[in-house]
């Protein structure tokens, strides 16, 4: 099984530490070796930092990519935002020598160079393709009978022209990953609708972002889901923090936390006290 440089990002380590912890434990149980990508920064966030300055976004992302390159490892992320940023930056730099040269001029000032070789993966992709559903099922010690709303988020599958992971209008990867725990992924309307938080929309117009989330919550509730399972701490934060205002209380879990439960991790280890909507096991 492959070894990956573990990219933490911002929201997981600094808002939902249970997501970081459960990822470490679950990957260990599944035989995926995570090596900390020390000294990394924010990816930087694609919707905001890239929107402010693409040059800054690309150079700071290149520094993160170069840190992994120096370790000779591909990157794995646990956040769609980080995946979006690092994947797109790598796509640009690994295929465009002119852009790479420009960025390297900047990296030279800090004694670094990026050669353009780092590959970037989303952990859900690693679980699905590298580990595989069969092996995951073997490691489930505490099968779950939950009804789940699987939430893909936008930047996992899109833009599909470069990501090529699954059909972005009719995806199944996350549903399969959820169902490997014994849980049932409930069909619902408008499943691929954005949570609303991305692109700086949450910060600029929180009420508009909330309207996106509200439609999602209505459809999730109507589907009979008891839990929301995401693969992005940023979507997680949006669902977790605005539900109360909207009169909903569906607990929100990152897929690694769902796996943690299905592998018998304790409530404390899963960091559930960080959640606004109470998660009771």
């Amino acid at each position: 099984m492959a070894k990956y440089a573990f990219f933490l990002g911002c929201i997981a380590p600094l808002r939902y530490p249970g997501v970081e912890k459960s990822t470490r434990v679950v990957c260990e149980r599944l035989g995926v070796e995570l090596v900390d990508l020390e000294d990394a920064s924010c990816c930087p966030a694609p919707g905001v930092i890239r929107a402010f300055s693409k040059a800054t976004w690309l150079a700071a992302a290149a520094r993160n990519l170069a840190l992994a390159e120096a370790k000779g490892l591909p990157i794995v992320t646990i956040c769609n935002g980080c995946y979006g940023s690092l994947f797109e930056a790598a796509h640009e730099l690994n295929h465009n020598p002119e852009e790479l040269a420009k960025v390297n001029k900047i990296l030279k000032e800090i004694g670094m160079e990026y050669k353009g070789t780092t590959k970037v993966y989303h952990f859900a992709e690693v679980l699905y393709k590298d580990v595989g559903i069969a092996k995951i099922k073997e490691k489930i010690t505490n099968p779950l009978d939950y009804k789940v709303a699987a939430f893909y988020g936008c930047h996992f599958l899109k833009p599909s022209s470069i990501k090529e992971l699954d059909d972005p209008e009719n995806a199944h990867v996350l549903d399969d990953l959820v169902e490997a725990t014994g849980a049932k992924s409930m069909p619902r309307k408008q499943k691929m609708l954005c949570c609303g938080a991305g692109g700086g929309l949450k910060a600029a117009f929180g009420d508009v972002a909330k309207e996106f989330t509200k439609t999602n919550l209505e459809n999730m509730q109507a589907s009979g889901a008891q839990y929301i399972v995401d693969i992005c701490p940023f979507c997680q934060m949006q669902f977790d923090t605005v539900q109360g205002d909207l009169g909903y209380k569906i607990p929100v879990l990152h897929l690694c936390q769902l796996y943690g439960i299905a592998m018998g991790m304790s409530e404390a280890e899963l960091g559930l006290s960080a959640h606004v909507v109470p998660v009771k096991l």
Partner: protein
Amino acid sequence: MCFQCGTCTAGCPSGRRTSYRVRKLMRMAQLGLKDEIVNSDELWECSTCYTCVERCPRQVPIVDVVVALRNIAVSEGHIRANHKVTATNFYKSGHTVQINDKIKAQRKSIGLPEVPPTVLSNKDAMAQLDKILKATGFNKIVE
């Protein structure tokens, strides 16, 4: 290039909820209506969900266009207060959100190091990032 079919607007979740019309924005960009664009709220109503990009029959890189327009707006000083907070967090700590004592305690209680092994744990790494942010002009956005 964009032939104004409106497919993007039809699927845009933001357009459903606000006055933002992505087809109109693409047209305004083609017409070079820079001042109107950089002064508009609508420019910041896109959540970069990529639904439009997936469906555009002409493969217009719509989100890239939105990002480029936002870069112009920001370089001319159009940045919202909350976005400035995010930018400042990144500039100061290398992360878009800040660490605090509560998080440190929580991390420790579940067996993680109090401070994650990122730029937050290494002053030299933060100094490197700082140089990059200055070299690419990010300091001008924050200050």
